[in-house]
């Protein structure tokens, strides 16, 4: 037969020589492996060894940010980057509770004037028809170095007028050799507010803000018209006059609202109102930049303590100290470095870590400086002590790891659709049914089973820490709990059954039809592994009252569809606060915010005229006893009406390594890193101690390999000693 491929044989021949060389190399490699194991640095270090003792914070992100544009971003995981890069007029105090605002870029808190129908200043907030905010900003604040701000000797922007041919040469932001900066002025704040209306930006809060900021909707309409006329040319927002926000002088601007909206103050602490230089829009709108991912979404430009030096959302986000950062002092009251200049940490590196397990294990190995606790690693880290309080497991405590617990300003609940003929409406019978269900469904058990106790049972709509929320042993919902011998106890199932009978469903049977009561619960599914258990649990809870429960679990989008059309009966939902004001929770029950009728955020479509009236007053009143009284009345009303089964306020557990200082759990402060400090020396020693190399498996492998070699050699010898006659003729024996 023709023997093809002799060239392969030749290759094999050459390969032998190569292999023998490689073998030497390999032995050398293994030697290195062992030698290096004995000293210097751990083998599983995922970072370059030159950074071993660098003052760099290591963090992880599971979902890459979709945008770092301050006008667009509205998620917590993006906020942790944006709030370090951009700064806002106001910010939350790092240490104070209840939460309080303090000026950041502004000189002081804004001056607010309430105006009556004639546009004259008034002190009566309830009668006021509009308001205006005057904000003075601090002079002498400069932007981070950025090519968009680079100017030549004539003062002309260097990179503002690139031709398409020139633009092609730039593939990433570091290709621009020149950078520049300029002072922050009031124009930049106004420009950003105009951006909220821009159809090219698509800000998520435009809908909400157009109801508050004067003239914003009008500006939008004008911009859209311009877009229709010239779809290709980018908008220059400076060309549009805008009465909603105006510059008064270089360091002062005024925002005018079409209603008295005292909560607007809190919005000034959110990234939507961060300053934005117009030069950036000019720079990024140049042809071809978007296709190189050179856009404001990926290359931000701010005044904050850090600037983004590398943005690879696939793997790594790297931030370095902003050289132009204005002077800011660490607040008094911090354990370390109080009163010194911030930031203390020189650089931040966030690695993409999609899976929770490597993230958690790397934290334990010392490669991440902070970590939350997932429900799968909860038992490994936390145990409840005799008083029922969570504590770190001894193993972690011995390593010096610190635990911080904080209740988040958010609530999860089971809502009733107020428009549903069975569970909804102000009818006392429906109210009794809702109250009976509220008693029967034991959310405390939910917290224990599904959250490892990381939740606080909700008594009403307001989480603790929000102004006006009541805490203490007397702040319980009297319709679900009662006090017996000084202890608050859930009302008994018998009471729930009694209420159910009064509602017209004795023992779960509808008296009118004689048929068993069937209810439907809608859940937005996120394909969790223990979903089956969750559904079984809900079914069991309803079965306590002999009510059959049907669970409709759909994707998040379908769930939203159902809420929009009111096609739900009971649903599971939650709300994460925008700002720590009771208004931000109570507006979820305000009638004119109804989802079905008005497209607002009141997804249970609750409607109560008393509540609505009190809401209007409450939302405008100054913080004081009068406002507190209104809030108490409103909470009592909804507790009785029970439009929600008050679920729980989530509690977050945060772990940090012993070499991390000044960390303080504050769910509203996203840029806590600017206050924090590190001890890289201690971190390096800990990493060495925690990652000792196991050598024995290598010996074991070697031994096995040797054993196989010996067997082979033995076989080889045996075959050589055999007589050649038995080899080939019948083709039975081995070849050699």
């Amino acid at each position, binding site marked *: *037969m*023709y*023997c*093809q*491929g*002799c060239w*392969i*044989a030749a290759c*094999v021949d050459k390969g032998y020589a190569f292999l023998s060389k490689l073998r030497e190399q390999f032995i050398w490699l293994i030697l290195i492996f062992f030698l290096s194991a004995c000293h210097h640095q*751990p*083998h*599983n270090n*995922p*970072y370059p060894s030159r950074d071993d003792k660098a003052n760099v914070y290591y963090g992880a992100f599971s*979902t890459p940010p*979709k*945008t770092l544009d301050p006008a667009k971003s*509205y998620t917590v995981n993006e906020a942790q980057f944006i709030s370090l890069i951009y700064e806002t007029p106001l910010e939350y105090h790092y240490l104070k509770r209840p939460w309080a605002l303090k000026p950041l870029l502004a000189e002081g808190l804004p001056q607010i004037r309430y105006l009556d129908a004639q546009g004259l200043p008034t002190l009566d907030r309830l009668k006021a028809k509009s308001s205006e905010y005057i904000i003075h900003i601090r002079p002498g604040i400069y932007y981070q170095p950025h090519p968009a701000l680079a100017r030549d000797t004539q003062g002309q922007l260097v990179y503002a007028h690139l031709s398409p041919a020139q633009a092609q040469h730039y593939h990433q932001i570091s290709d621009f050799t020149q950078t520049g900066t300029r002072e922050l002025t009031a124009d930049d704040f106004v420009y950003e507010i105009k951006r909220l209306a821009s*159809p*090219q930006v*698509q800000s*998520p809060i*435009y*809908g909400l803000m157009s109801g508050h900021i004067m003239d914003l909707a009008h500006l939008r309409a004008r911009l859209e018209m311009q877009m229709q006329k010239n779809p290709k040319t980018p908008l220059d927002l400076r060309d549009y006059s805008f009465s909603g926000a105006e510059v008064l002088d270089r360091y002062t601007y005024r925002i005018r609202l079409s209603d008295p909206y005292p909560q607007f103050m809190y919005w000034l602490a959110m990234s939507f109102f961060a300053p934005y230089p117009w030069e950036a829009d000019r720079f990024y709108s140049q042809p071809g930049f*978007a*296709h190189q*991912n050179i*856009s404001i*979404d*990926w290359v931000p430009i701010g005044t904050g303590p850090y600037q983004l030096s590398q943005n*690879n959302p*696939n793997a790594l986000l790297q931030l370095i100290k902003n050289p132009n950062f204005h002077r800011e002092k660490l607040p008094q009251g911090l354990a370390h470095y109080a009163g010194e200049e911030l930031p203390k940490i020189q650089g931040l590196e966030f*690695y*993409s*870590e*999609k*899976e929770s397990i*490597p993230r958690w*294990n*790397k934290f334990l*190995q010392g*490669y991440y400086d902070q970590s939350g606790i997932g429900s799968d690693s909860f038992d490994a880290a936390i145990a409840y002590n005799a008083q029922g309080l969570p504590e770190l497991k001894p193993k972690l405590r011995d390593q010096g790891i610190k635990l911080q617990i904080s209740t988040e300003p958010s609530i999860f609940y089971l809502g009733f659709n107020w428009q549903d003929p069975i569970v909804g409406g102000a009818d006392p019978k429906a109210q009794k049914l809702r109250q009976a269900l509220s008693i029967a469904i034991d959310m405390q058990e939910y917290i224990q089973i599904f959250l490892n106790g990381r939740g606080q049972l909700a008594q009403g709509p307001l989480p603790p820490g929000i102004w006006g929320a009541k805490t203490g042993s007397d702040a319980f919902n009297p319709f679900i709990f009662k006090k017996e011998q000084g202890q608050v106890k859930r009302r008994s199932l018998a009471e729930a059954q009694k209420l159910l009978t009064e509602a017209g469903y004795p023992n779960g049977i509808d008296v009118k039809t004689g048929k068993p009561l069937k209810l439907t619960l809608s859940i937005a599914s996120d394909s969790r592994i223990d979903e089956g258990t969750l559904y079984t649990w809900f079914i069991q809870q309803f079965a306590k009252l002999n009510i059959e429960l049907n669970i409709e679990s759909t994707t998040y*989008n379908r769930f*939203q569809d159902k809420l929009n059309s009111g096609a739900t009966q009971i649903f599971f939902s939650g709300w994460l606060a925008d700002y720590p004001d009771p208004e931000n929770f109570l507006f979820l029950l305000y009638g004119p915010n109804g989802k079905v009728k008005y497209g607002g955020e009141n997804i249970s479509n609750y409607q109560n005229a008393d509540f609505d009236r009190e809401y209007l007053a409450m939302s405008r009143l100054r913080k004081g006893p009068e406002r507190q009284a209104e809030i108490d009345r409103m909470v009592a009303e909804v507790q009785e009406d029970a439009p929600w089964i008050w679920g729980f306020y989530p509690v977050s557990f945060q772990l940090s390594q012993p070499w991390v200082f000044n960390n303080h759990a504050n769910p509203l402060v996203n840029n806590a890193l600017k206050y924090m400090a590190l001890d890289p020396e201690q971190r390096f020693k800990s990493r060495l101690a925690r*990652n*000792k*190399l*196991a050598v024995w*498996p290598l010996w074991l492998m070697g031994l096995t390999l040797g054993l196989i070699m010996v*067997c*082979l050699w033995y*076989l080889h010898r045996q*075959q050589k000693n055999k007589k050649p006659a038995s*080899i*080939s003729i019948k*083709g*039975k024996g*081995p*070849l*050699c």
Partner: protein
Amino acid sequence: MLIYLLRKILYAIPVILAVNVLTFMLFFKLNSPDDMARMQLGQKYITTEALMGWKKAHGYDKPVFYNTQASSWHAFTDTLFFEKSVKLLIFDFGLSDSNRDIGQDLKTRMGPSLAVAIPSFILSIVLSIVIALFMVLYRNTGFEKFLIVSCIILMSISTLFYIIGGQFLVAKTWHWVPLSGYMPGWGQFKFIILPVVIAALSGLGANARWYRAIFLEEINKEYVQLAKAKGLSGFQIAFYHVLPNGALPILTGVVVLIPSLFMGSLLLESFFGIPGLGSYTIDAILQQDFAIVRVMVYLGTVLYLLGLILTDLTYSYVDPRVRLE
């Protein structure tokens, strides 16, 4: 030869078109533009106006196949299908739903994917061939039986167990390599060694058995008997005769896979946090970013067809008896 190639490419075009239409239908049936908008816009204060705005900004507000408002040929080009699907054909991938240029992302992610895929591909083939040759060399001995049983055992273990077990022992318990991550340049050795070994190991059993069958067939041919009669040793026969001749069927089976190496490995990359195209695909599926998924489907198809053509080419190159016409 050239004509053959041309014909093959012409044949590939309707296949690519069919895949294109199929995926377009599947993904738009699956996820209406409304769903995509909602997915990307987040959860709060979403008005219908905002949804419309998003769709307009991303070009999802156009009619699907035929635009009644546009004039002449714009009626066909100013449509969703043309913008989102036909443009793929000229490798204009456009922006993902989260506003990143897909072409750029593909470029940056290709490196890590290949860094894992190529070494594991080569290691797997070399190891399998060596073991297969051993099996043939030591035919009908206990050693062969041992190897065969090992192979069957190796191929009876799910890849998941290799990955989970390997990561647990090597990375977590023994601290030999980092748990996950990637670093470009020379630092990547410690990140990719474990995935590479696992990938090679998990394919070893099936491949070695397959190659063994090929070599066995070869060893029965007359020229081997002749070589034996000449007095060549078993090793010589195996390496100089059986291996080169058996390489042909192995090559044809293997070449078809080479272009697909670009696609990366879904499982390995997501387990070991390697920012390659495999994990890109998985993330896109989980985040329902179908702009990316469509691109990956299209790329996979093109690479597969490329593999088929490459196979034919190598066949004719290695075996002079085969002519492509």
